[in-house]
């Protein structure tokens, strides 16, 4: 118990003094998760809106798949990306394995179904409300898609935040495709896993606290945005 207490105080010291290694790890984590989430949002928002508004054969199956893939296990995503980018894989020539780029790709793949499926639901709900009015005004299908994405912007922002939260918290995908290389592909979650098994509890604890604070912060922002949107836009 004493050791845990000591570990805690060392952890807090590490954070307060902004330890260089710690800072590097946090920064890389945030960068990778932000870029991965941004890429997923860039594809997922229009895809989700299209899935909500366009009718096509197999649409039902696609929606079921999307919803199922929201809970995709990160290690499985990691493994699949690993197979694709490893030297012998179809994308091996790009030399992406054990690079931050591969980690971004893995997190984007992980977050994409979440953003797409939730966007589909939000846009479909809005579309039900707007449908007659937009058709009466003569809005084209394409224009309606953009309109609904814009009018759902606050809800969609919280969706993207949820995606970011999942990306920042996962360890399975980034550890497989990134390899947890010091000063290169080492992020918060992979460090926690490594340091815990090595017995360096203070660093693992410090990172855990930062991770939890981050997750709390994301949720506070999401709540705030939702509340403000409800007040201002109903």
């Amino acid at each position, binding site marked *: 118990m004493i050791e845990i207490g000591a570990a805690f105080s060392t952890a807090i010291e590490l954070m307060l003094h902004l330890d260089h290694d710690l800072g590097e790890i946090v920064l890389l984590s945030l960068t990778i998760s932000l870029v991965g989430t941004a890429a997923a949002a860039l594809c997922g928002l229009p895809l989700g809106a299209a899935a909500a508004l366009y009718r096509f054969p197999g649409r039902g199956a696609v929606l079921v798949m999307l919803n199922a893939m929201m809970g995709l296990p990160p290690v499985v995503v990691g493994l699949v990306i690993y197979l694709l980018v490893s030297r012998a894989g179809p994308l091996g020539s790009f030399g992406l394995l054990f690079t931050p780029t591969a980690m971004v790709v893995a997190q984007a793949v992980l977050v994409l179904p979440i953003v797409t499926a939730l966007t589909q639901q939000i846009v479909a709900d809005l579309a039900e*409300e*707007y449908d*007659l*009015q937009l*058709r*009466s*005004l*003569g*809005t084209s299908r394409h*224009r309606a898609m953009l*309109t609904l994405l814009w*009018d759902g912007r606050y809800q969609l922002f919280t969706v993207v935040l949820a995606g970011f939260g999942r990306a920042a918290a996962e360890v399975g995908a980034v550890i497989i495709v990134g390899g947890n290389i010091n000063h290169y592909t080492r992020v918060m979650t992979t460090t926690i896993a490594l340091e815990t098994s090595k017995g360096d509890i203070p660093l693992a604890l410090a990172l855990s606290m930062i991770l939890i604070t981050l997750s709390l912060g994301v949720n506070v922002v999401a709540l705030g945005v939702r509340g403000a*949107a409800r007040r*201002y*836009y*109903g």
Partner: protein
Amino acid sequence: MRPLTGTGALSQELAPQLLPLEVEDLEYRVGGNSLIDRVGFRIRAGQRTVILGPNGAGKSLLLQLCHGLLQPTAGRILWGGMAVAAAQRWQAMMFQRPVLLRRSAAANIAYALSVRGIRRAARPALVAAGLERVGLAHLAARPARTLSGGEQQRLALARAWVLEPRVLLLDEPAAHLDPAATYDLERLIDAMHAVGTKIIMTTHDLGQARRVADEILFFSRGRLLEHAPAAEFFARPRSEEAAAFIEGRLFRGAESAISR
């Protein structure tokens, strides 16, 4: 012929004559039920037409069919000889609950203009004039959905008006409004009528029908029972249902129909 309304900013294309509205043998069936049952009529230009009837008479469905938001199961609708789809562009419709976008009041009007292809530079002046006309100029920057019910419906009317429609279709526009807001809305509808916009409105409110209507189409359970000038309809209804509705007896009639 140039439209009679407003600034003429939308009339680069010559607006066609949409009237008379001719409906023949119109049917709209869902499952086995005829919600609109072999309806035919002819509506001329000029008069304010009110489609009157109790809930479930098919009034809203009829408006949506005529506006092209629903496809009829059978029958024909012609606007001055034009098909519904081609005529829609010259019409505007207002719904029972105004559907306003989650943006400012001004942006709601600008949106409608942009959908109709009005240049960005031309929009602000039209938006300002549109808001001014319905007395909402001071609320231009307010998020539309924080406006009161009456203000929202006036904003919806302003949005319809800037499009300079030849025909304005209104689906129970005052159903959720208090008397003061209803009065304001009816004055604005009169103003649109005065500049030559054809008004076609549904209501189940007898008072409103008396105030607004020049002619009445009385519907009950999907069928058109009467089509008459308003004064004649209220003085001498020809059908039993219409007489009962005017006297406020219809509820009992409907109940007995259910228990039968």
